[in-house]
Each structure stands twice: as structure tokens, then as C-alpha cells.
């Protein structure tokens, strides 16, 4: 089956979800799980081909002119992500089947989450940068809808908006970066770009395009200083947190960086920026996870930390680092998805997820406790879990990193010490110690809520004991895709007594120490936070948005002031200045001011028009103004006759008479000429504007006289009016024959105006009802 159909199918079923839900009711959630499960099997079946490096490329034209193709590409890296998306998707949908059953608008939830799933699959399968961007934005958008799913809560709405603004901003920056990359690399297809890495790296645009793309990846993957939207996103229902905000969507940034690593990576800029951002994020996340009390917030901060670790590893870019990245990616998705599901299950059954109100749950929910501890051990990196292998490889990668090995190793160990402590804090806080005062009587969570954690923790254990199961088919092709060169990899639990093992021991020991002194440690750290970490990123961001909004409001009020005449004034001033500048620039108009050549009647008519115009402007009587306007009209008719335009003159006289009559009729009903509305200063200002405008029109006419254009088309009319149009009055022939369509349009305008006039006169005005 074509890759295009896979993505299309998910989208199609997503749109059907609300209707299916209406039909089937509560069971629909379990039914939806079949879709990702089927896709998971399908992708597994593609594995052998990928291992043999038979990559799949499918494409159809989308916007061929813009080089946008709907093209898809499946290699080891996309396949790994595809399996994560569909595999986690299956478990999460089973979980949602129970978790969401009493939610109103359940159908909408499944619509959003399937929409996300389709977009995420499209994102990791896309071969065209623009296609990738489109799917990327759909994931941001569906994340927004899902975070704000409980939209009655103002916190949920604020968090959703915050996430959308940050990831949307990043997405736009990334688009700009993609366009640059496409221009420099000569193609928008990833498969082409992978061949052109050297060209891109040596181009002048390399620095801006890398920075822009990084902004996109960092915002999506919650890297410092954009990390704060992720804890806010915990407002979403828990299945969403487990799926989007730990296992899949936030890994999109990692995916992008890993995907572009062969094209952009290896430079100082790349290593330094990713290393710095990753390391900062890793520490900030681990540190803040320790002082949280909400289970989901704890998990969110550890997710941030893990994402930082992944970015750091991509940035290092060595073979070993990429290996560590891929393994840790799998490890993290397994344990973090499971932990989120457990946090949600506890919340659902006990009624709170505040660690201060939990404790002593071990006897009442043994299955949940076992699953939790299995996953926590993996998170803490204890043997024999996959997490242990992941951590070992990471340490190995860092110890062997060039130059900065010591610092990186210290950073990683510090972050992991916190991770170990957090893992124990989480497990102990929920399941051991004294039972506190939970809102509901604790019992074992329902089976659908435990399937996911159970499957994931057992998988993690199993893969830790038999790592070869995933190395050959999954990890190696993915590394292969990032490194673009085949690797040989052997993972095992026991590496022997070496520096890496020593670091692991140190990590676990110090982590446990931190855990045993947790009360004092958390107290001290909270105090420390209150004193030195007063800046709340969410508040800062909110203030930024508010300032921006009030700035644009003020700005808009200046530009869009609502005064009709000032809009006009702006147009007049700008056009006058532009034309005056152009006239001055080109100059070269000449006119013979030979006043004696002007016939006296023309001079007289002109003077009449000018004086009437001035009179009409300054008179205090409306009637005088109208009469003077009529005088101008008739005088113009006279000019038309002088120059042979008989028909125009006749029409003008008719029109002028009609307008005069209409005007007098209307004026009769209006109040007299108003008391002076405007101050003398503004009159002078308007007068100046009027003179400047009128002046340039005069200059324009004089200048136009000296411009010779191509021969006038009038000659054609003169020649053919009688032979083709069969009329002796050439103007008439033009109107009704040569330009007949114009005249028809004109007639239509008249009809519309007439209809408008009639309906305006017939409609009775509404009486003002309320007298307040």
C-alpha cells in the first residue's frame, strides 16, 4: 500500500470519527485503536525491505509551479517514528476508550486525536520540506485543540493559546528556513538535499537557515527558553499528554534535527547551538521536575529534560551519540507514555494527582504499582531495563565526545541524578508512606487504563534483557538514516567494569542519596526557587503578548481612526507628493503661455468656471452653491460644443439639469448650512492640500501634452464607423457598437443606482424604540 494512502486513510477516518461515535457510543474508542494497530502491523511488514536499504519513495504533484510535491519517503528513521506513532497510538486509544467515556463531545476528541495521528505520520513520512511543514502545522493545530479540550476551564484555554503561539511562531520561522534551504540546496525533496549537504553547508545562507530551522525544532520540542508551554499543556486530558506531549509530537523537533543532521550537521554552529540548548534544557527540566507536586507536571518537566538530552545528542552528531539518541528515544517513549497513563489512571480512580495527597496506594492497587515501578526503573536507568542500556550508551557517547567530554559527562550525570531522585520520589510518593486524604476511595484502576502501562513496561523489561531484538531491525536502520553510513552495533546489558559503568553507579548512588534527603532537599530548593527563580516564563510570555496586543491596538487606532476625511486627506497628500516628486524629477514640461492666442470666449468661459468654483466652495448658502454648480456644468457643456463634442454637451446639459432638480429637492429636507464645523487652522490646512493637489493636476495636463504615445486607436473608429458600424455619428457608433459591452455595463450601473434610489425612498426608517 502506498504511503500516501496510509496518511490519507487516517485523515479520512478522523473526519468520520464524530459520526462513528454518535452511532457506536462508548465502545468507539476501542474500535479506533484498531486503526493504528493495523498500521503498526503494516509498517512492521515493511521492515525487512528497509533493513535491506530498499527505501520507499512515493510522490504526486501538488503545486508543481512552487516545487511542492506531496512526496513521501520511508527509511529507517521514519519507520522508527512511524512505529512509535502507531504503537503508542494503539495503546493510547485503548486507554482513551475508558478514560474519555464520560466526556461530552467524545467524538470530537477522537477526531482531534486521529487528525493529529495522521498529521504526525505525514510529518515523519514526508519527503518534501513544504509537505513536512504542512503536517507540522497540523500537529501544532491539533495540539492546540486537544490542550484546550476542556475549554470551559480558562487555564486550559490560556495554555492552549500559549502552546499554539509558541509552536506556531516556531513553525513560521522554520518555513522561512525551509525556503532558504530549498533555494540553496536546489530542491525541496529531502532525498535530493541529502546528496547536497556540502553545497548547503558552504553557502552564505547557511547560518540564517540553520538558526531559523532550529527555532522551529526548539519550540516544538520544548527546548529552553521555549520549554514552558509543555507543563502548561498538561491541561489536556491525560491520553493527550501521554501521546502528544511525551511520546510523539514533542519528538517532532528531534525528528527534524535528526533528519537534517546529514545535511546541516557537523559544523561548529550546529554542534554548539544544539549542545547549549540541549544541555540547558536537560538541566532546567530535571531540576524543576524535582520540586513539582502535580504528577503530570513532574512528568512534563522530566520530558523536557529528556528532550534536552536528545537535542544534545543530535548536536554531538558522532556515531555513538546518534546511537544513544535513537535508543534513548525508544526508551523514553516507552517509559514516559506508561507513566503518563498511570498518572491519569490514578487521577481517575483516586480523584487527585497531587503527590501531597497521595501515598500508601501499594496495597489497594498492586498491578498499577508493579507496572509503575517497572517503568520507573527504566526511567532511573536501573538494570536490567532498556533505560539502563540507554543511559550507558549516552554516557559512553559523552565520555568519548571530542574535547568537551568532561563537561558533557558532568552535565549528563547531574541531570540523571535528578532523574533517579524524581523516579523514586514519584514511586514512593504514590505507593508507599502513609495514606493521606484522597477525594475518592482508592481501588485498582480499570483494566483498560492498565493495559498501556503494562504492555510498555513489559516491553521495556524484555528489550532490556534481549536488546538484540531492537538493535538489528529498528535501531540500526535509524542510525543509518541519520549518519548516512552503515553502522555496526552491539548492545548488551553488561559492558564490563569501565568508566561508563562507574558513572552509572555514581548516578544511582547520588540519586538515591538525594531521594533519602528529599524533605530537606525539596524544602531548600523551593526556598531557593522562590528567591532566585521568580521569573515565571508563562507570566513573561503573557505580558509579552499583552504588550504586543496593546501596541497594535494603539497603532491601529492611529491608522484606522474612523474619520472619513482624514483617510481621504492621507490619499490626497501621498498621491500629490509622489506626483510632484515625479514631475520634478523628470521635469521637461514646456508650455507656451501665449495668452493672446486664447480666444476671448474660451477665456471668458474659463474665468466663469473658476469664479463659480471658488464661489461654490466659500458660499454660506446651499442654494447658491448648487446654482453655481449648475453654472459650471452648463459652462462645461459650452466648452464641449466648442471642441466638437455635440453629444457630450447635450448629455451634460440633461444630466446637469436633473442633478440640479434632485439636489434642490433633497436639500429642502436637510438642515441649513451647518454652523462652522471646522476651525480656521484646519481650513487653511485643507486649502493648502487642495491647492497642491489641483496644482499637480494642472502640471500633469501640461506635461501630458508633450508625451507621444503609440498612434491613437481613434483612426480606426474614424475609418470604420460607417463601413462596419453603419452609422454616421461616430461617437454613437463607438458607444453602441465598438464598445457596446461598456455601454451595457453602464446601463447596468444606472439600473442598480435606480433600484437603490427606489428602495432607499420606499423603506421606512425604523422608529427609535428605546427612550433611555
Amino acid at each position: 500500500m502506498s504511503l500516501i494512502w496510509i496518511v490519507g486513510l487516517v485523515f479520512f477516518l478522523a473526519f468520520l470519527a464524530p459520526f462513528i461515535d454518535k452511532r457506536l457510543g462508548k465502545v468507539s474508542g476501542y474500535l479506533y485503536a484498531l486503526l493504528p494497530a493495523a498500521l503498526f502491523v503494516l509498517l512492521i511488514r515493511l521492515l525487512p525491505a528497509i533493513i535491506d536499504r530498499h527505501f520507499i519513495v512515493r510522490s504526486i504533484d501538488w503545486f508543481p509551479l512552487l516545487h511542492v510535491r506531496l512526496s513521501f519517503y520511508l527509511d529507517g528513521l521514519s519507520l522508527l517514528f512511524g512505529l512509535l506513532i502507531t504503537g503508542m497510538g494503539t495503546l493510547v486509544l485503548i486507554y482513551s476508550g475508558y478514560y474519555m467515556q464520560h466526556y461530552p463531545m467524545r467524538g470530537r476528541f477522537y477526531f482531534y486525536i486521529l487528525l493529529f495521528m495522521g498529521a504526525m505520520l505525514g510529518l515523519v513520512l514526508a519527503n518534501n520540506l513544504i509537505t513536512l511543514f504542512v503536517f507540522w502545522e497540523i500537529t501544532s493545530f491539533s495540539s492546540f485543540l486537544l490542550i484546550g479540550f476542556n475549554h470551559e476551564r480558562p487555564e486550559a484555554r490560556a495554555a492552549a493559546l500559549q502552546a499554539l503561539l509558541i509552536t506556531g511562531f516556531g513553525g513560521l520561522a522554520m518555513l522561512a528556513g525551509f525556503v532558504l534551504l530549498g533555494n540553496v540546496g536546489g530542491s525541496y525533496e529531502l532525498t535530493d538535499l541529502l546528496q547536497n549537504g556540502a553545497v548547503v553547508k558552504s553557502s552564505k545562507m547557511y547560518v540564517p537557515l540553520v538558526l531559523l530551522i532550529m527555532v522551529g525544532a526548539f519550540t516544538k520540542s520544548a527546548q529552553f527558553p521555549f520549554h514552558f508551554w509543555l507543563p502548561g499543556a498538561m491541561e489536556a486530558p491525560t491520553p493527550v499528554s501521554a501521546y502528544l506531549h511525551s511520546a510523539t509530537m514533542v519528538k517532532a523537533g528531534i525528528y527534524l534535527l535528526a533528519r537534517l543532521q546529514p545535511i546541516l550537521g557537523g559544523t561548529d554552529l550546529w554542534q554548539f547551538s544544539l549542545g547549549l540548548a540541549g544541555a540547558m534544557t536537560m538541566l532546567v527540566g530535571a531540576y524543576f521536575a524535582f520540586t513539582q507536586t502535580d504528577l503530570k507536571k513532574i512528568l512534563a518537566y522530566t520530558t523536557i529534560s529528556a528532550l534536552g538530552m536528545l537535542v544534545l545528542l543530535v548536536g554531538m552528531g558522532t556515531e555513538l551519540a546518534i546511537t544513544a539518541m535513537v535508543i534513548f528515544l525508544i526508551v523514553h517513549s516507552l517509559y514516559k507514555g506508561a507513566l503518563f497513563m498511570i498518572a491519569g489512571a490514578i487521577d481517575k480512580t483516586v480523584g487527585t494527582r497531587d503527590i501531597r495527597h497521595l501515598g500508601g496506594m501499594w496495597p489497594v492497587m498492586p498491578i498499577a504499582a508493579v507496572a509503575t515501578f517497572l517503568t520507573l526503573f527504566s526511567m532511573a536507568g536501573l538494570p536490567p531495563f532498556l533505560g539502563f542500556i540507554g543511559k550507558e550508551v549516552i554516557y559512553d557517547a559523552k565520555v568519548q565526545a571530542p574535547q568537551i567530554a568532561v563537561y558533557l559527562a558532568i552535565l549528563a550525570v547531574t541531570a540523571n541524578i535528578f532523574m533517579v531522585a524524581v523516579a523514586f520520589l514519584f514511586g514512593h510518593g504514590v505507593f508507599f508512606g502513609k495514606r493521606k486524604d484522597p477525594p475518592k476511595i482508592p481501588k485498582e484502576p480499570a483494566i483498560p487504563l492498565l493495559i498501556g502501562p503494562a504492555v510498555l513496561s513489559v516491553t521495556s523489561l524484555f528489550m532490556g534483557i534481549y536488546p538484540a531484538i531492537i538493535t538489528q531491525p529498528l535501531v540500526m536502520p535509524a542510525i543509518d538514516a541519520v549518519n548516512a553510513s552503515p553502522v555496526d552495533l552491539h548492545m548488551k546489558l553488561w559492558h564490563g567494569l569501565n568508566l561508563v559503568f562507574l558513572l552509572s553507579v555514581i548516578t544511582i548512588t547520588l540519586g538515591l542519596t538525594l531521594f533519602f534527603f528529599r524533605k530537606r532537599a525539596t524544602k531548600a530548593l523551593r526556598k531557593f526557587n522562590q528567591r532566585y527563580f521568580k521569573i515565571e516564563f508563562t507570566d513573561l510570555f503573557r505580558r509579552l503578548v499583552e504588550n504586543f496586543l496593546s501596541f497594535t491596538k494603539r497603532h491601529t487606532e492611529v491608522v484606522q481612526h474612523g474619520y472619513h476625511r482624514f483617510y481621504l486627506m492621507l490619499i490626497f497628500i501621498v498621491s500629490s507628493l509622489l506626483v510632484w516628486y515625479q514631475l520634478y524629477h523628470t521635469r521637461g514640461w514646456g508650455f507656451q503661455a501665449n495668452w493672446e492666442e486664447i480666444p476671448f470666449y474660451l477665456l471668458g468661459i474659463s474665468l466663469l468656471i473658476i469664479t463659480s468654483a471658488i464661489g461654490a466652495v466659500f458660499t454660506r448658502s446651499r442654494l447658491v452653491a448648487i446654482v453655481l454648480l449648475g453654472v459650471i456644468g452648463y459652462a462645461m457643456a459650452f466648452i464641449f460644443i466648442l471642441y466638437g463634442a455635440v453629444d457630450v454637451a447635450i448629455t451634460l446639459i440633461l444630466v446637469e439639469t436633473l442633478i440640479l432638480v434632485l439636489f434642490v429637492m433633497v436639500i429642502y429636507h436637510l438642515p441649513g448650512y451647518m454652523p462652522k464645523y471646522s476651525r480656521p487652522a484646519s481650513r487653511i490646512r485643507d486649502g493648502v492640500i487642495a491647492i497642491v493637489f489641483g496644482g499637480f493636476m494642472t502640471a500633469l495636463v501640461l506635461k501630458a501634452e508633450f508625451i507621444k504615445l503609440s498612434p491613437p486607436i481613434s483612426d480606426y473608429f474614424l475609418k470604420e464607423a460607417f463601413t462596419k458600424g453603419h452609422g454616421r455619428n461616430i461617437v454613437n457608433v463607438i458607444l453602441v457598437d465598438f464598445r457596446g459591452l461598456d455601454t451595457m455595463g453602464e446601463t447596468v450601473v444606472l439600473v442598480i443606482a435606480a433600484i437603490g434610489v427606489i428602495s432607499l425612498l420606499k423603506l421606512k426608517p425604523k422608529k427609535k424604540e428605546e427612550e433611555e
Partner: protein
Amino acid sequence: MEIILAIVIGVLYAAGVYLLLRRSIVKLILGLIFFSHATNLLVFLAGSLSKVSPPFVQEGQKVAQSTVADPLPQALVLTSLVIGFGITAFALVLIYRFYQSSGTVDFDQLKED
């Protein structure tokens, strides 16, 4: 010969601009009429003014003589005149109704509402 007409056009435009910048709606319409007069004259002037006999094909001839005026600007001005009339009529009725329902002929008071 054009210079005097060019000045007339300038004056008409200036008067139109000045009136359009007033607060009164009645003056706005006066300004519009000035504008259309000025523009009509401008278009008319675009043709040559040196030939002054009306653009007719003489009886018994098939082609117009070379002395007739340019017919195209005349046709354009005619069209514009008629459309201008439609617009002015509509605008007049509109301000009449506007005054009936709002009780003012001042643009600024319209904004306050």
C-alpha cells in the same frame, strides 16, 4: 490654448478636494460632482483639441474627414457622465435617508454613534 483649460481642471480638482475634506455630507457630494467635472474635462483634453468639427461621417462619404475631432474621448466622457449621474443621484438619496435616520449631516457624529 490648453493652458487655460489646464488651470480650469486644477481649480476644479482643488475645489473638489477642499469640499471632500469637510465634515458636512452635503459638501462631500458637492466635492464629488466637482471631481467628476474635472475628470471629464481631463479625459476630454486627452484627445487633440486642434480639430474642432463634430465627428460625423459626411453624407455621401464612407470615411470621416481628417478635420473631425477625436471621437474616442467623447465616447468615454459620455459614459462617465451617465455613470456619474447615477452615482450622484444615489448619493443624494442616501444622504437624505441618512439624515432621516441619524438626524445629522455631520460625519464626525456618525463616528460617535
